[in-house]
């Protein structure tokens, strides 16, 4: 008994060590960005890894960001694009997943494969066609163009993950709803969706980060000042000859905050889902 307890102790220790190392590696770049955003330009180059001290502390980067350009607007644009895209991904992804997992129809498997294809083929391959499409539709320089593209980009993974989860929802429960006269929509929204909430949170987290961080599509589809996103906005401090590192690092630091908040919201759902399943 005691021997087994000791080995599991050792194993736990090893697991924690590995996880800690990974955490340090993953957080290091973020850490460097955050500490350097609060230092003077000279200190950034001289001691990039030292913490901001009395001699090096300087908020000039943040001042530049807040004075120059239109950062509150960029934040707002990013937030709108991310939140609306996520809502669409979750809604339409879940609907498609429900149809694929719940109904028997001709071409069901084929449809599932077709929808999953997007996981394997990067959407950027279609950039030229997408641009042509958006120009033809008159959607260039609108946030809606970005929302459409990100929704398309996120749906394959959402369908893939959610349809697997929806297969685990009890058939009896759905059938009880049908006998009680609930519409298929009510069954979907009130019975099935709450039960796959942890999976929805997973999908939300996986889809959110690439959308928030994306530079490619904002640059191509919506470069106008009024619809710039944060990542694109931060680019104006990166010049061909001179780069305002203070401002770049400060804007990136600020850009971490909203996405961190969203992540915390979703991950709490995620953890609640996992623990409620474990306890019951």
């Amino acid at each position, binding site marked *: 008994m005691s021997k087994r307890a000791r080995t599991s102790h050792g194993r736990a220790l090893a697991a924690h060590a590995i996880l800690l190392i990974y955490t340090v590696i993953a957080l290091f770049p973020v850490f460097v960005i955050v500490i350097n955003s609060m230092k003077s330009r000279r200190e950034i180059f001289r001691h990039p890894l030292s913490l901001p001290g009395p001699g090096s502390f300087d908020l000039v980067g943040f001042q530049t960001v807040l004075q120059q350009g239109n950062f509150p607007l960029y934040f707002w644009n990013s937030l709108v694009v991310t939140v609306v895209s996520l809502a669409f991904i979750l809604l339409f992804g879940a609907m498609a997943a429900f149809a694929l997992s719940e109904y028997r129809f001709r071409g069901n498997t084929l449809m599932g494969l077709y929808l999953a294809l997007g996981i394997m083929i990067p959407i950027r391959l279609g950039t030229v066609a997408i641009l042509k499409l958006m120009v033809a539709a008159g959607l260039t320089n609108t946030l809606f163009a970005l929302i459409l593209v990100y929704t398309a980009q996120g749906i394959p993974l959402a369908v893939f993950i959610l349809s697997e989860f929806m297969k685990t929802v*009890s058939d*009896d*429960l759905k*059938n*009880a*709803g*049908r*006998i*009680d*006269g*609930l519409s298929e929509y009510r069954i979907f929204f*009130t*019975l099935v969706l*709450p*039960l796959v909430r942890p999976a929805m949170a997973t999908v939300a987290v996986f889809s959110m980060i690439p959308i928030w961080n994306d530079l490619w599509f904002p640059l191509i589809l919506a470069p106008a000042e009024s619809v710039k996103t944060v990542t694109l906005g931060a680019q104006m401090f990166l010049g061909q000859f001179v780069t305002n590192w203070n401002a770049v690092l400060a804007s990136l630091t600020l850009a971490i905050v909203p996405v961190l908040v969203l992540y915390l919201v979703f991950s709490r759902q995620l953890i609640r889902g996992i623990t409620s399943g474990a306890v*019951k």
Partner: protein
Amino acid sequence: MGALTLSNVTKSFGATEVIKGVDLEVQDGEFCVFVGPSGCGKSTLLRMIAGLEDVTAGDVSIDGARVNLTPPARREIAMVFQSYALYPHLTVRDNMGLALKQAGTPKAEIAQAVDRAAGFLSLEPLLTRRPSELSGGQRQRVAIGRAVVRRPKLFLFDEPLSNLDAALRVNTRIEIARLHRELKATMIYVTHDQVEAMTLADRIVVLNAGRVAQVGAPMELYNDPANTFVAGFIGSPQMNFLKGGALGLAAETLGIRPEHLEISRETGDIAGTISHVEHLGGETNVYVHTEPHGLLTVRLFGEHNFVVAEPVYLSPDPTRRFLFDKDGLRMR
């Protein structure tokens, strides 16, 4: 109010035919049990009656009206599921009242119907709880209550007792029997447990591989099985099947129930040795190995002191034996 007719109903999933033509009439107020081994199609048949599965061919009629294309909610049925299937986000009261609410019944009437059903099943103290705060037995009572509230033409039970422990199973079985007596409603009950079938049913439908093997009252099936399948399925312990040829009979198989096989230490038709004895108090089951019939079961009432490896003789009661031909059909 609540007669069900199935005429030549079939169901296929792709190329596999699961229900191969079932004809059945269930009278109003009857308690009808579908029984059969797993995979015989009994649950599928029930789900077709409920409207949860399409009918591939044939007709399902309730009260003379064809309902093949009627959605489940409009068939005036209620169903109790094996896994209870309570709505996790609703309280017991809302769970029970949902169907009426969907049908647009006034609130006061719903409350009244729920209270009546709750009183009937002693669910009053649970009405404000959620399903996650109930035990398994309570959940199944709520599920039954949810069915009662609707006052359906037809109650459908899909193995409602399978997830309950033995003691609760007996209680809930008695509850369902009482429900049937007092509501005088038509009930269709699916189970793989022949004890449930025997104790609850007015009429049992034995299903085998998508076909009806025999329909009849419990005692009819017990005393007059039409084939070896029904003979073996109904009755516990299972009927003994002896080789007819070895006994000098024209029949392929001789079936004899364990309670109709006499055991003696001195003399009898078939010699064998005891391989196992089960003492259950009220009865004793003796397993006897014989040549060439294999292991035969003898059911004795009361306590007996047979021991393993003892040589004994068995004699089938000639008035209670059943003869079957080589297709397993009864020879009369």
